[in-house]
């Protein structure tokens, strides 16, 4: 058996998925830990060890316990990779700070992400999706669904909300990818330098010419009166832009792919006129796919017992929300995609605790609109390459498919 300090392959996080059998399932080793060793240590990229939390109840307990910090500057914090350690992990904004500062900042930036505001955005997002599908139909297949739909839609939406010119998408798209995929500190720092200067210039523009968008409001209501530092605003803008399109794009691609491989589920989505069903189906796709598979990272700042193990101060914790969402004690037949699952809204695909993704309502809405329209408007949608030829990206924060060739 693998023990805590073994430096074996089984003990390295993240372990590999079995892509040839079912690419959508979490790695076998993590599922084994959920059953047999639910709170256990693994080794991460920088050679340190972190506790891996796999059960639903344990994970939710950690994420709501103030004895765990989300601050990467705290000793022992288990950072995701070198790119995060060099760039995003050094932010002093909502993702990376504890309360009371977290809630203060969240309340400054959340107004465009409330239930009411996202619902007001729905017709706009619907028109974007219709426009993209019109273009797909005019072009004709085969096309890469990632490049034509999955990346453009969330990019357009977050650009509109933030007040970033969509015409600049290639500039920051390339750099955001470079930032997240950097393998050395130097590469990450270079990509970061570019993207931060971009937002510096954009903030100057918003000071002179405020428009009706989140960034203009943050500049004039928070930064200029002194509630929010300029450096922090630059970094918050970067976070919202990166988090706002990358994760959603990956989820659009993977959710479309899984429906292409599950004919019964696809038929139900295609034929349904019931928004409640589409909403439940999308929540189940989030649960089942668990694309944010690098987990939620925390560090203990006091001694805490979790699932019978003692976690000591300065020990890192990785809460595996994608494995928690396969916990049979909460989700029966958890390994099965069931679009009618009654409690699927309880999934933790967006995390839990105060750091739960602020964009979850927006992301869920984008996915609902896509799946309500795509299958009806292109009923013959099919994969244009065998599943075995698709390239899955396992190494980053998100599990995703690199390109998704489709035709009809």
């Amino acid at each position: 058996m693998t023990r805590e300090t073994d430096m074996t392959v089984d003990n390295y996080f993240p372990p590999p998925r079995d892509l040839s059998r079912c690419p959508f399932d979490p790695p076998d080793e993590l599922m084994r830990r959920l059953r047999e060793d639910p709170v256990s240590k693994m080794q991460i990229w920088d050679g340190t060890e972190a506790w891996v939390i796999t059960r639903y109840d344990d994970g939710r307990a950690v994420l709501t316990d103030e004895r765990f910090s989300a601050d990467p500057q705290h000793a022992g914090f288990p950072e995701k990779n070198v790119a995060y350690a060099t760039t995003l992990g050094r932010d002093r904004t909502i993702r990376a700070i504890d309360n009371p500062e977290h809630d203060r900042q969240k309340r400054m930036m959340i107004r465009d992400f409330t239930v009411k505001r996202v619902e007001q955005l729905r017709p706009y997002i619907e028109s974007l999706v219709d426009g993209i599908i019109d273009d797909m139909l005019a072009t004709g297949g085969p096309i890469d669904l990632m490049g034509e739909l999955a990346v453009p839609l969330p990019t357009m939406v977050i650009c509109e909300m933030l007040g970033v010119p969509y015409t600049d998408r290639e500039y920051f798209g390339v750099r955001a990818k470079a930032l997240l995929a950097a393998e050395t500190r130097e590469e990450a720092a270079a990509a970061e330098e570019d993207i931060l200067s971009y937002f510096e210039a954009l903030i100057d523009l918003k000071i002179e010419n405020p428009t009706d968008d989140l960034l203009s409001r943050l500049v004039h209501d928070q930064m200029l009166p002194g509630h929010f530092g300029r450096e922090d605003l630059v970094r918050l803008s970067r976070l919202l832009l990166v988090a706002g399109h990358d994760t959603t794009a990956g989820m659009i691609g993977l959710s479309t792919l899984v429906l292409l491989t599950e004919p019964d589920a696809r038929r139900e989505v295609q034929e349904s006129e019931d928004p409640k069903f589409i909403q439940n189906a999308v929540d189940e796709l989030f649960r089942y796919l668990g694309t944010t598979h690098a987990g939620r990272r925390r560090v203990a700042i006091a001694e805490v017992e979790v699932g019978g193990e003692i976690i000591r101060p300065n020990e890192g914790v990785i809460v595996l929300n994608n494995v928690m969402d396969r916990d049979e004690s909460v989700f029966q037949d958890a390994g099965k995609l069931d679009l009618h699952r009654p409690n699927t809204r309880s999934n933790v695909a967006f995390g839990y605790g105060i750091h739960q993704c602020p964009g979850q309502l927006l992301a869920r809405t984008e996915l609902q609109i896509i799946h309500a329209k795509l299958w009806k408007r292109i009923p013959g949608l099919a994969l244009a390459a065998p599943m075995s030829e698709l390239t899955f990206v396992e190494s980053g924060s998100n599990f995703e498919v690199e390109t998704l060739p489709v035709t009809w």
Partner: protein
Amino acid sequence: MVMTAKVLVEVDTRRCASSGNCADVAPEVFTQDDETGVVVLLEAHPAPESTADVEQAESLCPARAIQLSAEA
């Protein structure tokens, strides 16, 4: 879980992390402040038909800012 029991709802606006989950699943009972996203309780004594939604809101609240108790 008794679906038809009446519950008394309390919210702690100091704990609220503006996630919006409650306003999403039980809009007849919860809404959000337009500026800060903080929970606003619309109905402390919701009708029995709303009990299931309110219980879901309590369970989903990532900041543990909703408390339910049995209504006498």
